[in-house]
């Protein structure tokens, strides 16, 4: 009996809890329209039929892949000597390899720059609640490049290796996102977002890029 009375009492009293004012229907509608237009503009600056081709993620993927192939090719070329070349040319190549940043590092620096831009965009979108279903593909491409770099001499440097491993983990998580943003999706996003922060991935990416730029600038190689 007392429990029933308490429930009745609670229901009556709780009506005053955070009592909503009249719904600002028109104002919110204008806000929704403005926000949708802004997000569409950010996400799809081009016309629909050009989306896939002109997507920055696709362009990055192609760019990174090309840079990596060229970089690794140059690396093998300079690292193993020139088949059929003269001794003088080989010595010259060896000298150059010793004095200039290796092509692997150059490719790694390029790649880290792309990852930093990608993760920054991802964090901004995830925190704003923008659907991130279009990011899994680019994350997969960046992940492949990261793994190639992990298997390359670029990862001989311990700091670079640790950074690449952390980048690999975060990109793998993003690549596995399915695009549905129910509560589980939100939690996944938050977990990835926290992971990026806790591992200071963006800060370390920026530091690594600055260091690479310093090496390149100091030696005049890039």
């Amino acid at each position: 009996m007392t429990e029933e009375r308490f429930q009745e009492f609670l229901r009556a009293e709780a009506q005053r809890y955070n009592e909503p004012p009249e719904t600002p229907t028109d104002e919110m509608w204008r806000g929704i329209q403005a926000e949708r237009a802004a997000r569409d503009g950010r996400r799809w600056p081009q016309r629909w039929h050009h989306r896939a081709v002109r997507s920055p993620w696709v362009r990055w993927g192609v760019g990174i892949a090309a840079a990596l192939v060229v970089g690794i090719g140059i690396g093998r070329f300079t690292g193993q000597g020139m088949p059929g070349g003269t001794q003088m040319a080989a010595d010259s190549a060896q000298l150059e390899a010793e004095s200039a940043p290796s092509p692997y590092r150059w490719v790694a620096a390029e790649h880290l720059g792309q990852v930093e831009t990608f993760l920054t965009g991802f964090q901004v979108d995830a925190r704003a609640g923008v659907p991130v279903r279009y990011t899994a593909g680019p994350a997969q491409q960046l992940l492949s490049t990261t793994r190639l770099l992990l298997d390359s001499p670029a990862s001989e440097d311990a700091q670079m290796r640790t950074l690449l491993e952390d980048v690999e983990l975060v990109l793998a998580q993003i690549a596995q996102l399915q695009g549905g943003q129910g509560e589980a999706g939100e939690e996944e996003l938050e977990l990835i977002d926290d992971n990026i922060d806790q591992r200071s991935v963006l800060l370390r990416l920026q530091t690594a890029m600055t260091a690479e730029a310093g090496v390149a600038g100091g030696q005049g190689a890039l």
Partner: protein
Amino acid sequence: MDEQQLVARVRAGDARAERALYEEHVDRVYRLAYRMAGDDDLAREFAQETFIRVFDRIGQFRGEAALGTWIRSIATSVVLNGLRKVKRFRQREVDLEIARSAGGSQRQAEPDLKEKLGRAIDALPNKYRMVFVMHDVEGYTHQEISEQLGMQLGTSKAQLSRARARLRESLAEFAGEWAS
């Protein structure tokens, strides 16, 4: 125009259908957001974000549940996630307020029932609070709550029961109000 036709028109990009869908559901979404947020700006933000997602994902609506249920399940997700994000910020504000009041000698008046109840509801974990607000304040059924929060019917009932027990404990000094 029935619900299926409305959804089909929204999917086709019909702006008037979008507005009709919005008008049909905005009140309940905003009311729930406001009850949970206790703040107009935040409630607007949650309600707007809900409809942005609704229009963005209308292609995923398969009609297995009522449109209103689907919309409000998005709303509850937006609200709960949004509240989690502002929680840390609010905690800092509370800490500052406590620090300020600790220095003063002014004696606080005893809180009245409304204030005490408000604080007690605020202190509930957000998922309990959501169930309590939906059921006891906004009049949703357990069936609706379980569908919208993606939980079992029994879980909804259990959470409401726990929420009420906590509130009863917090309001023990006002027991005369409901015992008489």
